[in-house]
């Protein structure tokens, strides 16, 4: 275990920015992706059958017009030179059955085929999309579960924003990918069906027309190459535009106080000009390309007439055949255009896929005991550190031989300069990191033998920047624990002086808190965090006291609430305020990861050691007033 955790700690997450392979088609990635589609493979299969059907029905529509109507009915050709897929016979049958003119029968036939196409096409798209949606939903859920259960050591190294985009943007790009693939299927299957029929009518003409494809393909390719770079520049300039404006608005007061309006406008102008330059450039390219693809289809019409005319005179083609070719042109060329449109999406999606699987491969975790101890209903709350050594990196030790005991119900204040290891100590107590050098005991039970889940239920943590969940205030206090009733939540809030501000809110305990609790002041958030801990009633309280000074009123409420919260509860307080320290039963002084001193406030002051120095430095002004 020692080795593996050390390895995990050493792992480098700089690969966040690492170049991904960037291939358009990464087969191993697709294979891995297919694993999530597997449960929905039947739907997927049905969808594949439906697209074949729909494509055939799509191709039949021009066949009816050219072969049935023009060749068979109008020109009365007896010998069909173009494949009719049984439509001529079907039309004659219909006309006989209903006793109507063949033209009317053709109308009816066309209508039936059209409806059939519409229905099967819709069914195809819906079966495809539903299997994709379900598969991606599962993938996203698995990804979320995976990230939700990564340990703190993981989140120490990664930027939350970057991890977040894997669940949102990257999965989103996969939707785009699969949707893109769906579109391509919808274009290319009819393409091949049409191609088959064209080959059956006239191989030469078909091959001549196919010559256009490489031309279109390469123009499309070069266009996409050129625009990819341009689009990136456009996107970048747009985002710097937005960023500049956003920042300028957020800091407008500073801008105005510094009289920077004119300077900032000219800076904004240059970004805006840059954006305009790229926009105009890509507009120029895009308009050329758009006009080009339309033209190719029209040129093909000329080719068909020219060549088809000769073939017809020689008796190799019927008029309907020639017309059929003109009707197929779109089916032949459109897929190339669509393919061009989709490549950028494919590129981005492949990169996204790689990032998602990369995230799923981060396997760092906290080691859980194979045979966890069952904790008693209520712990006494004795905490003992024994010869604990710890470092986040192997070679940098943060804690050295930390040994001390906190008696049940005792209030211990930890003081020490920044970086002395205070936060690390409480993190280890919550087992947010694996440690193997030394031990921590809770009521005499080795922490490494308790499942982290059971352990953390017994330790209430209030961090400096306490997280507020979006939801109502009540939900934020109860945190989904069904044992905490509304009455209990209100009682807890009342005890820690949070009831006052909560009842002034328009909806009281049902007030929805916005993301990260922005509609609460810092002091109010602190009180709410207290209420949450008090309601959960853990045996041990861990508090990282906020450093920022708050207005005196709120400060008083917090101090009072803290007193009630620690009453009769084993408490470990990383203290920044003199009053908190003075009210603690003992003070532990930490320096460079070592326990320097431990004793009551008075004892340590009298001893004249490090605490004395720290105290006189840090609380000089406050002491001034006590003198």
């Amino acid at each position, binding site marked *: 275990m020692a080795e593996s955790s050390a390895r995990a700690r050493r792992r480098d997450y700089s690969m966040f920015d690492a170049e991904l392979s960037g291939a358009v088609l990464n087969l191993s990635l697709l294979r891995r992706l297919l694993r999530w589609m597997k449960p929905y493979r039947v739907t997927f299969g049905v969808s594949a059958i439906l697209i074949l059907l729909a494509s055939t029905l799509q191709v039949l529509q021009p066949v009816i017009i050219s072969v049935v109507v023009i060749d068979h*009915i*109008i*020109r009365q050709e007896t010998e069909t030179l173009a494949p009719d897929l049984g439509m001529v016979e079907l039309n004659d049958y219909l006309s006989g059955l209903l006793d109507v003119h063949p033209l009317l029968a*053709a*109308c009816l036939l066309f209508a039936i085929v059209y409806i059939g196409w*519409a*229905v099967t096409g819709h069914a195809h*798209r*819906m079966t495809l*999309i539903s299997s994709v*949606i379900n598969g991606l*939903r599962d993938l996203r859920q698995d990804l*979320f579960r995976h*990230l*939700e*259960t*990564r340990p703190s050591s993981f989140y120490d190294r990664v930027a*939350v924003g970057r991890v977040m985009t894997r669940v949102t943007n990257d999965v989103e790009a996969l939707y785009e990918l699969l949707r893109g693939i769906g579109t391509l299927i919808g274009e290319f299957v009819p393409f091949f069906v049409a191609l088959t029929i064209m080959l059956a009518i006239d191989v030469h003409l078909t091959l001549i027309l196919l010559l256009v494809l490489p031309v279109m393909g390469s123009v499309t390719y070069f266009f996409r190459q050129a625009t990819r770079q341009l689009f990136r520049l456009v996107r970048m300039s747009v985002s710097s*535009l*937005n960023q500049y*404006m956003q*920042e300028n608005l957020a*800091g*407008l007061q500073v801008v*105005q*106080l*510094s009289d*920077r*309006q004119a300077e900032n406008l000219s800076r904004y102008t240059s970004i805006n000009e840059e954006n*305009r330059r790229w926009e*105009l450039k890509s*507009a*120029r390219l895009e*308009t050329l390309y758009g006009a080009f693809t*339309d*033209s190719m289809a*029209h040129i093909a*019409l000329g080719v068909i*007439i020219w060549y088809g*005319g*000769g073939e017809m005179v020689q008796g190799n083609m019927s*008029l309907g055949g020639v017309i059929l070719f003109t009707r197929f042109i779109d089916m032949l060329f459109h897929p190339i255009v669509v393919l061009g449109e989709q490549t950028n999406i494919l590129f981005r999606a492949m990169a996204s896929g790689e990032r998602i699987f990369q995230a799923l491969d981060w396997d760092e975790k906290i080691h859980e005991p194979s045979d966890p101890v069952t904790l008693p209903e209520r712990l006494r709350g004795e905490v003992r550190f024994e010869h604990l050594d710890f470092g986040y990196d192997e070679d940098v030790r943060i804690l050295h031989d930390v040994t001390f005991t906190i008696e049940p119900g005792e209030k211990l204040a930890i003081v020490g300069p920044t970086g002395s290891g205070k936060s690390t100590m409480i993190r280890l107590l919550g087992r*947010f990191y694996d440690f193997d050098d030394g031990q921590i005991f809770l009521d005499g039970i080795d922490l490494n033998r308790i499942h982290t889940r059971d352990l*953390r239920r017994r330790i209430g943590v209030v961090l400096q920047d*306490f*997280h507020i969940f*979006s939801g109502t205030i009540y939900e934020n206090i109860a945190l989904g624990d069904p044992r905490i009733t509304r009455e209990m939540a209100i009682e807890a809030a009342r005890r820690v002086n949070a009831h*006052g501000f909560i009842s002034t809110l328009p909806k009281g305990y049902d007030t929805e808190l916005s*993301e*990260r609790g922005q509609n609460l002041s810092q002091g109010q958030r602190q009180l709410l965090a207290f209420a949450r801990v008090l309601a959960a009633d853990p045996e041990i309280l861990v508090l990282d006291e906020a450093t*920022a000074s*708050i*207005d005196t*009123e709120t400060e*008083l409420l917090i*101090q*009072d609430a803290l007193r009630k919260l620690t009453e009769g509860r084993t408490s470990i307080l990383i203290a920044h305020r003199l009053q908190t320290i003075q009210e603690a039963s003992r003070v532990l002084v930490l320096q460079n990861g070592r326990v320097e001193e431990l004793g009551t406030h008075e004892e340590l002051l009298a001893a004249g050691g490090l605490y004395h120095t720290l105290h006189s*430095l840090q609380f000089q*002004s406050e002491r001034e*007033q006590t003198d």
Partner: protein
Amino acid sequence: MLKSLFRLKGFVTPYRWRLGSGILAFGVARFFEALVPMLLAIGIDRIAAGNLDLLLPVAGIFAAVVGRFTVVSVARYLVRSSGIRVSFDLRQALFDALQHQGSSFFNRYTIGDMMTRAVADIALVQRLIAMGTILLVILVYATLIGFGFMLYLSPSLTLLLLPPLPFVFFYARWASHQMAVASKDVQDRMSDLADHVQENLSGIRTIQAMVQEDHEIARFLGTNQAYSNAFYQQARINSLMAAWMPTLAAVCSITIIGYGGYLVMEGELSAGQLVAFLMYVNMVVQPFRVAGFVISLFQRAAVASDRLFEVLSLHPEITDAPTGDAPSLIRGNIEIRNLSFTYPGYETPALSEIDLDIRQGERISIMGRVGSGKTTLLRQLVRLLDTPPGTVFIDGVDVTHYPLSQLRSQVALVPQDPFLFGEPLKSNLTYDDPNRALDQIWAAATSADLKETIEDFPEQLDTVVGERGVTLSGGQKQRATLARGLIRQAPVLVLDDCFSSVDTETEEHILSELSRLRRNQTTLLVSHRVSTARHSDRILIMDGGRIVEEGTHEELIRRGGLYAELERIQREGADETDYDFLGAPG
């Protein structure tokens, strides 16, 4: 709707020739395009008759293609570039307008709202010009030219094709509305999902400490499913559209097969013309399909235009009208006479009848609870708020008589919120004047106790701060904004609660440095700590927008009022009775 769009006139006028000629060129392009089916019909009919004289139709098609290609590329570019240019101008105007707004504007609008206007609303106007115009032009031209050719070929068949067209239009309009609703829903669900993930990952330590992982994973399934459902709904509407949109074209095709086929058999129409008809129907129906979309483009751009002009038509909140009687260098005597101020939209005044005299070189501390008017008072000094004339005088001259830039550079206000730009520290410290010398920067950093912090960064003064760079702690940010204020060596320095995240020791250190540096210069500072205020020449206690106590530390302690009480609480800690005293709800 048209009235709203008409407001854009001023922005479009400079490009009217560009846009106009683009629109005209589109008509020519459509004509070229419409020639193709005609020529195709001739070709087919010649083939059908066994006549191999195909040069005219084939060469004609090629010529039409080349003509169309040239004209269309030019036309599209002219129109699109007009859109790009208009949006460039709009952005410039908006940025300029926003820079002159003040606090009452930001009370009404959020930054997010402004960003939406700058991004989405301008994009809508651009799309209207670049895309809406093109589509509208195509719609008109294609219909006119397409029908023209069809009428020429066969009036009776053309008339028979007319009735279904309005249906295309109405169906398209209905469908595009449905699609808009569905895609809005997808966006909303997506942003729920993003919020959910963001919230979870940023609170991951709390979640794990509170053993909430399973609960959160289950909750996420709900968000995830809601998004999937919305996405499915959108896909369904899109797919239905794709299936039924061509219906009307199909109805037209059936008409052509039936009636057109009959005409061909009667010899009134040729087979080639029948094929041409099929192509013209496509040409005419296609624009009708997008008609709904065009309408919605116009509607949305009208709303966007209203929203843009709501901001563009605002006047600067603070008027800069220097009278010329102000001295060029402020010495630092401040008089406030009977100053009352009420924020727009509020009933209770934020300041009532303030009278105050501050002599050059004095250090004044201001204390008071949240909302007592401290910040409002300080803002009046530099006219961040619309200071009423005849109330605030500096060196005997009304502040409204000073040029704004002089007032704000010689009265340096360091605001409460420590805002730093996402730029190198150096640019942040010299924000008002990027040309400051390096030793000046270091001197200010030293006074603000920021020197060692900067020296700890590998890139020193070139360290980029903020999201894209190094995240500073609250205290570091406050010290950096303080340094930004100190560097100006202004005759009057105003510090609005700039030490709240700085520890007391550092604060003491900075304050003693300040007393040394700012001898004979005026300093005003707001604080919550008695320890900060006690060494000032004078302490003001504000409550409910009034100055309720005024004097030195000793005087106020003797007086036994609010200040004395604050001092006692901060010294001894609170007891039960203090809650009653502070009126704090228990």
